[in-house]
């Protein structure tokens, strides 16, 4: 067991919303932060939020965020004493964890051996089966097609946390069955499927799995649950998950703080200190166009207004004025809602999505609202087939009742435009100082009511 050290400056080896998320907790803990960025991310929010920032290289991740030596150089240059990998990129590369520790820095994550043990899926499954963990049937060899092996499974994941001192706790489950092409879109905790005994069973098995690989820090044990409520181990991720906010909302814990504390050698809380309260739902806001086959959307976010109010949490990675580039995952941020019960939490998230305004690029906000409002989702009766089964229903169709409003809007706008053009022609007097590439612009500047009372 390596001797954990006090952390003072954290290099966040990631970008976007998760980098911002990690920096926020570091700031609350009084830790200095170092961001890294590629060419495309010079103007990104995580660069502005961190105390320091180091340029890695060209925009493609393999020339920047995935180049271990560049990250280690950045840590050295800035005197960082810890590296938080976030999720994706290098977060599950044992080689990177090893290199970080070899450089005398703290890797905020599991030991490289545990990462290797879990990274090699067939071996991991064998090891877990030996430890008494039920593994998805008939899947000792193949790496793909797990979800297809069971009929209409649900995907339920248990958040675990282990420390260097042998402490291991769970923080309950996350229901992750709303997936589009294996990409999670909506997550919630608790799962509408689980009852007390099933939850207790799954959490116990999850801890058994974590112990079997000598896990340290945050980990997630994913299970498939079939229609008869039997469950099988699917995989274990040895890092923070994107959907960790739902667990934070329900337990009141800050998982990034816990990660950093465990990395410094602190003990995890006792299991009986973890108290669950209410219900949380998270929706991932993607820059993609559901009407065009969910094609990613790039370009400048010309206006952004995120919702707030009771029980709403925004985990954003962008800002108004930011240019979304085609190089990375199109996740703009995550919007979550907490409430005392599931119905209120879903209603709250639906309300909040209504207030989420993004101009300049396409997003999946309307699709998310449709998904949350779908009867199957409202009833909590959905599985990993939800998105595919209801693909057509979830595509926004115009609400016929609003057609009149749209007609009025178009007619009033046309009237104003015509009117302003006429007005502009009469407005030559003050024209010398006007700026415009045509006459209409002058008219618009003078003729519009708006922006001032």
């Amino acid at each position, binding site marked *: 067991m390596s001797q954990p050290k006090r952390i003072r400056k954290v290099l966040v080896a990631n970008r976007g919303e998760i980098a911002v998320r990690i920096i926020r907790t570091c700031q609350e803990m009084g830790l200095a932060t170092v961001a890294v960025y590629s060419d495309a991310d010079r103007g990104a929010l995580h660069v502005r939020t961190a105390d320091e920032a180091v340029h890695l290289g060209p925009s493609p991740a393999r020339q920047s965020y995935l180049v271990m030596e560049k990250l280690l150089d950045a840590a050295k240059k800035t005197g960082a004493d810890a590296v938080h990998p976030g999720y994706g990129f290098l977060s599950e590369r044992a080689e990177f964890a090893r290199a970080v520790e070899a450089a005398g820095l703290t890797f905020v994550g599991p030991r490289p051996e545990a990462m290797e043990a879990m990274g090699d899926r067939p071996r991991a499954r064998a090891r877990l089966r030996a430890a008494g963990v039920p593994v998805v049937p008939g899947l000792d060899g193949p790496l793909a097609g797990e979800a297809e092996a069971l009929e209409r499974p649900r995907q339920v994941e248990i958040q675990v946390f282990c420390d260097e001192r042998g402490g291991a706790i769970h923080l309950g489950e996350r229901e992750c069955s709303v997936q589009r092409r294996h990409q999670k879109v909506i997550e919630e905790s608790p799962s509408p499927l689980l009852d007390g005994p099933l939850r207790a069973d799954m959490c116990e098995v999850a801890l058994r799995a974590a112990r079997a690989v000598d896990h340290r820090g945050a980990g997630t044990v994913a299970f498939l649950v079939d229609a008869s409520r039997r469950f099988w181990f699917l995989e274990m991720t040895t890092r923070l998950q994107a959907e960790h906010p739902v667990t934070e909302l329900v337990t009141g814990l800050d998982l990034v703080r816990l990660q950093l504390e465990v990395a410094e050698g602190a003990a995890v809380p006792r299991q009986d200190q973890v108290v669950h309260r209410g219900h949380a739902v998270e929706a991932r806001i993607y820059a993609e166009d559901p009407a065009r086959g969910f094609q990613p959307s790039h370009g400048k976010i010309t206006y952004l207004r995120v919702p707030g109010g009771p029980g709403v949490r925004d985990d954003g990675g962008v800002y108004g004025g930011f240019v979304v580039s085609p190089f990375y995952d199109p996740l703009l941020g995550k919007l979550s809602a907490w409430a005392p019960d599931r119905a209120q939490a879903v209603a709250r998230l639906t309300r909040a999505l209504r207030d989420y305004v993004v*101009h300049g690029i396409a997003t999946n906000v309307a699709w998310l*609202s449709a998904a949350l409002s779908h009867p199957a989702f409202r009833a909590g009766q959905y599985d990993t087939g939800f998105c595919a089964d209801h693909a057509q229903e979830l595509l926004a169709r115009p609400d016929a009742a609003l057609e009149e409003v749209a*007609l*009025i*809007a178009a*007619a009033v706008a046309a009237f*104003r435009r015509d009117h302003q053009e006429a007005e502009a022609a009469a407005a030559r007097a003050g*024209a010398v100082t*006007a700026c415009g590439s045509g006459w209409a612009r002058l008219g618009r500047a003078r003729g519009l009511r708006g922006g001032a009372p």
Partner: protein
Amino acid sequence: MSTYVALLDGGAREVAVEVVPDGPGAFAVRLHGVVHRVDAFQHDHGTLSLLVDTSSYTATLDREETQVKVRVRGSVFPFEVLDERRLRLRRAPGTFTVEGRQTVTAPVAGRVVRLLCRAGERVRAGQPLLVFMAMQMENELKAPRDGTVVELLVEAGQAVEGNARLCAVE
């Protein structure tokens, strides 16, 4: 009063909307025989706050020529909006193109900077005919239709009044 006609479902449906201004930002709008009181407020990030009678809506308009896409509460409505003049042209029997002699006039008083066509020349709709300057800004005036420049009434450098006839295409 101005009347607009919206073509919906690719022209299969036609709806007339009459707009009468009624104070700053306020309009009376007749649609399907009902008159609505409408208050329109333009937000500077490009959305229109509309109060239709008492109902509150936020509309985003995405316009390209006469085609417009209106987004209201997550619903998107694509249609074409024509004013009376354009509609009349559209309704010319047998064709949907601009017919007859079209005269190009000065939009405001100004000066002809440069001629880009000659009398008798064949031109295409949209082709620039001359560069016109007013209020310290240059604008190109374009051919309203395919045809021949049958009249060219001005020369480069000439000052003209608003509405002055500049040339004609037929």
